[in-house]
């Protein structure tokens, strides 16, 4: 959906310019056609690989299909059963909870880093590069590395330092395992949010700070009354895009806890995916349809909110 928010604008910009420089009215539609050709490959691929499978999936959610062979229509049965299935309900609770926690953590850390990295410090470029690195590592690799850290390094260190609580791996504790997922997901997601914040901070004019400094505003006051209001659009983008992404968390959980201990860290995406290989195809299609509606709603809210904000 993010592409939908930006692409009309980028496509509009040149056409908006051309009539001013060349007033000839016949030129406009011709230029548009060229841009349409640019859109075509993406449109075809998007339709074939995203829209069509999605529509087929929704169709199958009203059947009893196991993914192949014959099937019957069962109406809304899959949906009705789903809403009373504790496994599915708890996976929604878990996923939404983790996404909320991660979004808060990511934005606090990313904004702090971004403010630090846009201030006058040494080795800024080198530090930025270091902080962006987690972005280029594949999620499953990150998950396996942290799995080792949580299972071995942290307990060993805790034993050496006599920290009673951490001596047992948090991955093995059904009440704490979710924290590891929040931490690792955040570790991977911070760089992207940080880059958006750095871009946002650069849009704030320096003279505003100078003026406030003359008026005697403290750094904290500047942050609260100048920086945050002026980059509020970027905060919004980060929160909504982040939340949407974290709802789909999959590989980090697979690598860290694989849904365990017990079923304490099973996300919606894991539940859906397990249905595909386990003959629960139609049922999990119903699940993914509901999941799709939830993400769609969030995307629509994002569209609405960001459209109202002219700054971005």
């Amino acid at each position, binding site marked *: 959906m993010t592409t939908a928010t930006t692409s009309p604008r980028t496509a509009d910009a040149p056409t908006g310019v051309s009539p001013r420089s060349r007033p000839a009215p016949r030129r406009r539609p011709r230029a548009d056609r060229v841009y349409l050709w640019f859109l075509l490959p993406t449109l075809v691929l998007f339709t074939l690989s995203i829209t069509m499978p999605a529509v087929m999936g929704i169709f199958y959610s009203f059947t*009893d299909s*196991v*993914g*192949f*062979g014959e099937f*019957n229509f*069962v109406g809304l*049965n899959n949906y009705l*059963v789903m809403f009373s*299935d*504790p*496994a599915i309900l708890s996976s929604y609770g878990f996923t939404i909870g983790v996404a909320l926690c991660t979004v808060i953590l990511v934005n606090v850390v990313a904004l702090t880093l971004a403010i630090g990295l846009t201030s006058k410090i040494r080795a800024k470029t080198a530090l930025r590069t270091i902080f962006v690195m987690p972005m280029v590592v594949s999620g*499953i690799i990150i998950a396996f590395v942290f799995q080792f850290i*949580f*299972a*071995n390094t942290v*307990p060993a260190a805790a034993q050496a330092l006599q920290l009673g609580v951490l001596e*047992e*791996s948090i*991955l*093995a*504790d*059904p009440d704490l395992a979710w924290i590891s997922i929040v931490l690792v997901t955040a570790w991977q997601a911070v760089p992207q949010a940080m880059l958006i914040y750095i871009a946002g901070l650069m849009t704030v004019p320096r003279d505003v700070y100078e003026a406030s400094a003359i008026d005697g505003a403290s750094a904290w006051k500047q942050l609260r009354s100048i920086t945050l209001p002026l980059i509020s659009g970027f905060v919004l983008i980060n929160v909504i895009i982040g939340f949407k992404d974290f709802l789909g968390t*999959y*590989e980090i959980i*697979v690598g860290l806890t*694989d*849904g*365990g*201990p*017990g*079923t*304490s860290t*099973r996300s919606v995406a*894991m539940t859906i*995916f*397990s*249905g*595909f*290989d*386990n*003959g*629960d195809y139609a*049922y999990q299609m119903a699940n993914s349809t509901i999941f799709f509606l939830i993400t769609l709603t969030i995307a629509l809210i994002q569209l609405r909110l960001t459209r109202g904000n002219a700054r971005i």
Partner: protein
Amino acid sequence: MSHVAPTPSRRAFLGGLAGVALAAGLSGCATGRGAQEVSFHQSKPEAIPYFGGLVQDFNQQASGVRAVHDTSSGLSAGFARGNPPDLGCLNYNYEIVRFQEQGAFSDLADLAGEARIAPSIQDLIDQYPTYPGRTSVIPYSMMAAAVLYNEEIFAEHDLQVPTTYSEFLEVCGALEEAGVTPVYSTYADPWTVAQGLVDYSVGGRLDVAEFFEQLRAQGPDAGPEAPVSFSRTLREPLEKMLEIAAFSQAGAASRGYGDGNVAFARGEAAMYLQGPWALGEIATINPDAQIGIFPLPMTEDPEDLKVRVNLDLALWVPEASNAQEPARELLRYLITPEIADAYNQDNLAFGVREDAPAVQDARLQDLQGFVDRAAFYQGVSQAIPRTIPFENYAQGIVTGQSLEATLRTLDEDWARLARRSETEA
């Protein structure tokens, strides 16, 4: 290997899709040429090189048929597209059973005659939901699993292999007193809990096949309060399992399969509840390790001892295959006694033919007697449709979640699934 990763990674899945697309393209090219192509799906990692060799030999001697060894395609995707492999050779578990149940496999009754499967092993197939009137699957290889133990540690402490439950507890107690970890457990990998502790404890205590037959007969009336239920039947064996689990090393909850193999190979514990698939890795880590095997005793009668088995490989030809005749030709080649026996010897597996030779590996010879008199069972973890996260439940039980509540959840899941199949039927 008997375990199957609970969820294939997204990458493997996409790779599978790509593989299927590629295979579709290739088979399209092949039609009209001289040799007819057969896609042979076999993905047990340890056996890939072995079967690669067999496919080559087959291609050299067969005329008009060329087998292509496919080790990575996604099965579900293949069937969903109506383009499954022509011949499958995979672990027989619920992933395969659901295709069988739907009638997706062709009838191999004639070849089953040639394969001369031992009746006790044929029973293993029939313990799952089958497609009426059809031989959908031909067993190829069977693995037997029990408790692996370190013979040196046992000898050092003057311990005998236990044959009753109380003897087993005595052995554990003696080891603990001597400062040796009795059992190495790897709770971080849920499948190891399900296939080891849970399957051995339940299988050693009750007739698993009969239990599931009764459970299925109840249909949608199943549930925690039904006459036959997980809550009623599994509670006692699983309580015993928790007694055994308590003899595990500290920090078992954060140890995985790989850690377990290393630790057990290095003699860090006396016993390890894993299958023969771990023996290869253990031998690589410590070639001098003296490993023996015994069935986990769960009763006070040594006559009750049984080993856990699974059909490690079974063959099938999908209805949707366009190359059924050539696929059957390849199947016929694979079940020739020389080929099948050589494979099973090489892979620490037991043959499935009536006259299959005894296993030669010294470590497995203690299990031959049990296999011969069919003192074996298929694990309870393998009899539950995979849409119920049983392995995770097993992990929950050993890491401190309530046994009673978990069994209740399991009963409710089972009943919900039964009700759903009922309305769908």
